């Protein structure tokens, strides 16, 4: 990839709050990360960790009110090479970015397509809008895109309606729609969660293949670490509206420096785990105890402290800063050095 290394999107200190009747929900509270050109960044976290709100903030699709981008900047370099701050961009200019420079696919392929328009109309809409093509040209582009995402008989499918397709097909259509204007950034918000496992693998393969062909960056939002291992170059782990760990995908898996990341990794079965032998006690998966904290009532210190088995008194006193652990790796834990030491010993 020619542009590897250049920063495409930089999110700095983003704060997205929701004003509810019960108080202010700080869904995203000072999130900072960046995506380079051609790179796949995975944002990982449980439900309620703020990862979807982060992606919707980048698209400026947060319903306002009750939502509000309180603070921070989102610097994005468009296809025209101009860098803009998406937080302050006028709505009309933002519309030119959406679907053209940045596009998005969603978790629910079954309901994400408009039931009353044909597949071709819906893919072509973005093409007509952003590339000034006529209706007929846009349908040709749509047919080509359907062929690209591996839908059989695209000339026929382009005139069909969403209800005539399966969930996997619809997600392919969503991808075709998202890529129809050659975006610089594709935001994929749990794109495979609603699909069954064989289809998941197909969709992930497709996304990887298309990324190589088109060269866009991908912001991949997921809670599935298996998908992360397969797709991502770098990983951002979110918890309670903040980034708790960030680093290279190999590093994150090999040497996590935040107890939450460790917990996530321990809660998935691995191929190397001992198979269950009859008569022997079963090996249990380790689950993280407790739940995501109530965003209306966050603990004063580290938001993970109530669930953390490594917590010490100092953890509940103040929110720890992001420590630079070296090599572009960051962790929001005051005991990260101890973990690093332990990892070195284990790996040795």
């Amino acid at each position, binding site marked *: 990839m020619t542009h590897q290394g250049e920063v495409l999107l930089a999110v700095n200190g983003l704060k997205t709050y929701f004003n509810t009747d019960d108080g202010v929900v700080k869904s995203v509270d000072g999130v900072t990360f960046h995506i380079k050109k051609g790179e796949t960044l995975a944002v990982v976290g449980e439900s309620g960790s703020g990862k979807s709100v982060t992606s919707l903030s980048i698209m400026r699709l947060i319903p306002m009110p009750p939502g509000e981008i309180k603070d921070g900047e989102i610097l994005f370099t468009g296809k025209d090479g101009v860098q803009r701050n998406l937080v302050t961009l006028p709505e009309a200019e933002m519309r030119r970015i959406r*679907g053209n420079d940045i596009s998005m696919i969603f978790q629910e392929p079954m309901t*994400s397509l408009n039931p*009353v328009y044909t597949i071709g109309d819906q893919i072509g809409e973005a093409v007509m809008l952003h590339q000034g093509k006529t209706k007929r040209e846009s349908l040709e582009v749509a047919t080509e895109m359907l062929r690209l995402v591996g839908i059989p008989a695209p000339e026929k499918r382009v005139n069909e309606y969403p209800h005539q397709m399966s969930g996997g097909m619809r997600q392919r259509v969503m991808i075709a729609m998202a890529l129809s204007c050659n975006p610089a950034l594709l935001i994929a918000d749990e794109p495979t969660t609603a699909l069954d496992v064989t289809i998941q693998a197909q969709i992930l393969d497709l996304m990887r293949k298309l990324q190589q062909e088109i060269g866009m960056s991908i912001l991949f939002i997921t809670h599935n670490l298996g998908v992360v291992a397969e797709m991502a170059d770098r990983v951002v782990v979110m918890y309670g509206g903040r980034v708790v760990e960030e680093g290279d995908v190999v590093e994150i898996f090999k040497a996590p420096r935040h107890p939450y990341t460790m917990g996530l990794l321990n809660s998935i079965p691995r191929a190397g785990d001992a198979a269950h032998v009859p008569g022997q006690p079963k090996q249990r998966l380790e689950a993280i105890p407790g739940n995501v904290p109530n965003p209306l009532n966050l603990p004063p210190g580290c938001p993970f402290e109530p669930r953390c088995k490594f917590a010490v008194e100092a953890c509940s006193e103040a929110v720890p800063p992001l420590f630079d652990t070296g090599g572009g790796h960051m962790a929001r834990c005051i005991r990260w050095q101890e973990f690093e030491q332990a990892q070195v010993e284990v790996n040795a």
Partner: protein
Amino acid sequence: MIPFLLRRLVQSIPTLLLASVLIFFVIQLAPGDFLTPARLNPGISPEQLENLSRNFGLDRPVWEQYLRWMGNMLQGDFGLSFQYQQPVLDVVWPRIKNSMWLVLLSTLLFYAIAIPIGVYGAIRQNSLGDKSINVVLYFLLGFPSFFLALIVIYFILLARDATGLDIPVGGMTSNNYDALSAPGRVWDVLKHLIIPAVVLAVSDAAGLTRVIRGQMLEVMRSDYVRTARAKGVSERSVIWKHTFRNGILPIVAGIGGLLPAAISGAGFMEVVFAYPGVTPMLLTAIGTQDLYLIAGFNVITTILLIIGNAISDLLLAVVDPRVKVA
């Protein structure tokens, strides 16, 4: 589509039969008959009464009256109105036409009021504008429409006295109607129609407004509207092309009811505005037990309801690709 229509036709036969039986016998449930007032009149001799009774078929058992009526209807003869001494269709048709003009105009206004207000209410949900419009519409809905009409007439009469303008508040045509040119006649009728049509539309608008507002709100939260926004579609297109188009589907499904409603007249509005529509005729017919006039009119309404429902289903298949006409 042809098989669909044929099947609908076949299905409508038992519906119509059952409806006609109900209509006929329910009318008969009322005590007395068309000749009851004549019986109380000492000036009419028993022989005359017997003659009339035989002529009208009222001396036969009810089931025989029904069967004859049914048999004649199958040949397109809806019977004779006792009161007018004319075939039912001849009596009913001009009034249906009059009512249809009024109802069509008020229905147009009804949608023209409800759609923008409903859409506005959804876009600016719970804003001051949304809330105040709701209060006004609910007030009008809760207000009896004939009473609202009387108030409107009162104020128009005041305005007429004050300005000297000739604003009609009753009837369908002016006295000099016959002398007018063709466009003049249209204008004259329109002048008479507009006030009852507006009152009728405004007084009922709350219901549909509420339905449209609710539909819009529901669709606006849907995933495909988010998809449209994510494509960079303009807000206007999001609202009308993606939201409204889906929001009106249930309303299209109910559009078949408009056809019978169009001929059923504007109810008390016609009485209050002395409008020569269906309602005043029907009220007199019920009062005098003009059996075949009431029954015939109701059968026509039933037929139109069946046709209207078929049209609804066809239309729904046009606007919603998921619906197949079968």
